[in-house]
């Protein structure tokens, strides 16, 4: 069990790095997912097709493939994803600005993949608003934009929270994959490093790593359960 104490800084560092990826990817995925969701419900057919295509492609593809694309495809195109070296952010999240591009690649893959699910979560929220609401808004003469802004979206947030939350939980779990794609020092890569290269006993390391992930996922899951129960009563 000594490894948990001796290498506490490795576990803590891994946890912090995983948390960084999750925060950045969650922000990116929420923004991109919202854009795709708007595309998917827009009245212009080509944009709708683009949104639908995006969701179908990324939802049906393993994240592993997306990661491979980002980690091997982007370098083949000569890109180091330098556009992610955002001035203020990279002083806060130092990995964004490093010369090794794998953190940025992993981030891109995670955002692209999760955005498809975010889009579906948002859309399921819009679908959950009773049709009569939108119809009433239309008969008042509101346009598409006004209809969304004043009537549908304010109500759909509520129904979107729980699906969005489970998408974020799934994303946190998916972020474990980045350790196998060249990101050094996150929780899952630390597991590999400690057990194989540094030869620590397997069980305590596995325990420590698991706790790291459970700290993030279980409270969020419990919170969602509670919100869901409360909503069920309110409805």
């Amino acid at each position: 069990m000594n490894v948990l104490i001796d290498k506490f800084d490795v576990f803590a560092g891994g946890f912090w790095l995983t948390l960084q990826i999750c925060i950045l990817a969650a922000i990116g995925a929420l923004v991109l997912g919202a854009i795709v969701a708007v595309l998917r419900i827009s009245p212009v057919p080509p944009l709708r097709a683009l949104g639908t295509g995006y969701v179908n492609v990324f939802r049906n593809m393993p994240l592993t493939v997306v990661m491979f694309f980002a980690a091997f495809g982007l370098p083949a195109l000569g890109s180091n994803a330098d556009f992610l070296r955002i001035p203020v952010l990279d002083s806060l999240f130092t990995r964004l600005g490093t010369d090794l591009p794998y953190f940025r690649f992993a981030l891109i893959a995670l955002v692209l993949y999760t955005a498809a699910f975010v889009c579906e979560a948002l859309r399921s929220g819009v679908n959950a608003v009773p049709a009569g609401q939108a119809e009433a808004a239309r008969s008042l003469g509101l346009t598409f934009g006004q209809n969304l802004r004043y009537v549908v979206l304010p109500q759909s947030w509520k129904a979107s929270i729980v699906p969005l939350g489970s998408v974020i939980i799934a994303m946190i779990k998916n972020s474990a994959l980045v350790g196998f794609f060249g990101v050094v020092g996150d929780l899952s890569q630390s597991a590999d490093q400690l057990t194989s290269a540094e030869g620590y006993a397997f069980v305590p390391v596995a325990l420590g790593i698991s706790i790291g992930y459970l700290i993030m996922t279980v409270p969020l899951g419990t919170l969602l359960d509670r919100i869901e129960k409360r909503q069920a009563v309110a409805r």
Partner: protein
Amino acid sequence: MSQQTSVLYDVPGPRQRRITLISSVVAGLVLLVGAYFLIYRPLDEKGQLSMELWGPLVDPSNENFSLVWERIGLGFKNTLIAAAMAIVASLVVGTLLAVLRIQLKSLSQRTFTGLATPLAYLLRGLSWLLSAVTRVCVEVFRGLPVVLTIFFVARGFPEFGVYLDNLWYLVIGLTVYNSVVIGEILRSGMEGLPGGQAEAASAIGLSPAQTTRMILLPQAFRIMLPALISQLVVVLKDTSLGFIISYEETLNIGKQIIGALENPIQVYVVIAVLFIVVNYSLSKLAQYVQRRLARGRKTANTPAQNPPPAALMSQAEGGAGTGF
């Protein structure tokens, strides 16, 4: 889809149709130009569209064509085998888990009248404890990334002197996660059933085990079928994680091909298309089943059932997976 969007705006009149047409054309042009400059041009400049790189994958007369596709076929077969084994195992374990949790929950609420008081308390405490333990197990395994369960199984089993094929590590790792998810799907399906079902069953003299087996489980399976099929998609996607324990599935084979031919983008495009085709058909199947079930329920005129919790449904869809 068309029905859903039409709720948000009126059936377009002539002017609106004109506006839509014009904006469609403009948006289409913008998309095409964007695709040309952002996708086609960079690919072309780097020579990624050359026949040298694509040839082995799309040109039957290429010397490597049959070999490459033989390997990809083998990899895809391995992917399907692992996915099939994992889904069957998860279904079995998940069903057992769901039944166990339901039984334990009802046991822990029983008062055991007719037994000596200390014994009754002991039994009650024991079933409460077991129920808590299963609950914690479910929470833990649901909260762990699938990558890690696979990794832990592959690293941990040899540690305890259990040596298996890579296939088994992958299947066990996937099963640990997915059986818990499927168990929760089924459990919420059973708990969502109207209370009258179980009451009627015990009224005609069925034992609790019979009630679960003959009344609750079949209905739960039926309601949860779409979610279960979506979970199948998740499992299929998650088998691609086999590459971390060097199981020879599609992606691993892809890596070998790339090692020989040095065409990563092309190989990954082909593999992505394979996955998308299979998974898209599966999710269409799930939608079809859902629509049929909805129709069947309406005509059968059964009382409105509680829909499964959204968190579970969307987790099954995304899972992300889960997992994905």
